[in-house]
């Protein structure tokens, strides 16, 4: 019960940290919070288990908690990264395609929110697009949006927008970048397939375990009975 409480508390904490904080502070805060949480968990474990202190068991428990904690953290990070990669690819391809079709950048920026599936981000893009239409300040637009993405990935979107706005089109360069992003997107699809394969295998394993328990239970009961008869 304690373990469940500890894990759920840590997950809730991380969820709020991810949602509320700026990405710049996030790394430091995450490192500090993870270390503090781990120490807190270890202390709790020691305090609760001191009455029947078995060193090997406690070490194993602590290791299990640590493993679960980092596994959860890693999966959360991966999910976030994948989501933002797909979103940025969609945005980039939209901008690039519309530029190729001969539209003006001012019109494109007003329509970016249509491509985005995520409700919160879509609302943000729409608001920022409306503000951009009023003052035509591209830098403000990019700075405000860049806060919500990984800076390395967002750089190329910003680059394409700046190119389009200040220099006109540089279609070749942008199309190379789009190809790279598209390959990343394809990689994500392939990764999903691999993951599905592993998941299916594990579910089949669970089924097999249930089957083994069903079949072996009466046999084991009979065996115990026969042992009683023997001795």
């Amino acid at each position, binding site marked *: 019960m304690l373990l469940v409480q500890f894990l759920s508390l840590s997950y809730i904490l991380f969820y709020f940290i991810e949602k509320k904080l700026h990405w710049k502070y996030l790394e430091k805060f995450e490192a500090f919070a993870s270390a503090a949480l781990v120490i807190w968990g270890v202390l709790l474990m020691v305090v609760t288990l001191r009455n029947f202190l078995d060193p090997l068991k406690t070490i194993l428990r602590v290791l299990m908690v640590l493993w679960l904690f980092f596994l959860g953290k890693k999966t959360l990070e991966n999910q976030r990264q994948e989501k933002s990669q797909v979103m940025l690819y969609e945005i980039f391809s939209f901008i690039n395609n*519309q530029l190729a079709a001969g539209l003006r950048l001012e019109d494109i920026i007003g329509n970016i929110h249509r491509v985005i599936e995520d409700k919160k981000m879509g609302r943000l893009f729409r608001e920022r697009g409306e503000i951009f239409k009023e003052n035509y300040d591209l830098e403000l637009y990019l700075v405000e949006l860049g806060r919500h993405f990984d800076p390395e990935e967002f750089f190329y979107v910003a680059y394409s927008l700046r190119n389009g706005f200040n220099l006109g089109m540089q279609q070749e360069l942008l199309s190379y970048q789009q190809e790279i992003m598209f390959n990343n997107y394809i990689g994500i699809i392939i990764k999903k397939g691999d993951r599905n394969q592993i998941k299916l295998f594990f579910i089949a394993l669970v089924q097999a375990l249930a089957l083994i328990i069903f079949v072996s239970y009466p046999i084991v009961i009979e065996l115990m009975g026969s042992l009683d008869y023997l001795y």
Partner: protein
Amino acid sequence: MLKREGRGENTELLGTMKRWAAVDNNVVFVFRKTYQDKGGMLYGDFFENFILRVNSGIEPSEAIAMDIRKIGSPFMRNVMINIQSVIENNGDLLMILSKFEHEAFKIEKTLLGNRIKVHKDRTLLLLMISITGMAYLRLHLLGLHQGWQTLVFVPVTLLSVWYYGRIIRESY
């Protein structure tokens, strides 16, 4: 509308659309001609509704926006959003359609690969589900059934069927 992709439908559809866009850079013309070519296709309802609405006096971009949420495939939704934006600002349809045709080809190829990868595990899981179900029934018939067996059997099968459906929906 059905959510099915990865069987070459999207590539085929975008190819025909591209060919008609080369004739005339007019969305209504392109959609009408593709609907005539491929009446019973995957997004037939979408095209039919579009043509009906345009004939009754609604603007093309608005007619697309009305049905865009009914398209199951995120890729095709993206394409339609792009087309909508092009119509509103008098852009070049041919350019966009040829780009998306190329992308659709690659995506459908990878989805096919995924399907082939998952196929063996899928059959294995189906076999396991059926065997456990038969074992459960068998125990009932022999009179060896106990309460805890239902407690194990029901959640495990429900979970596996749910997961199975989810994964198949993703990759098929």
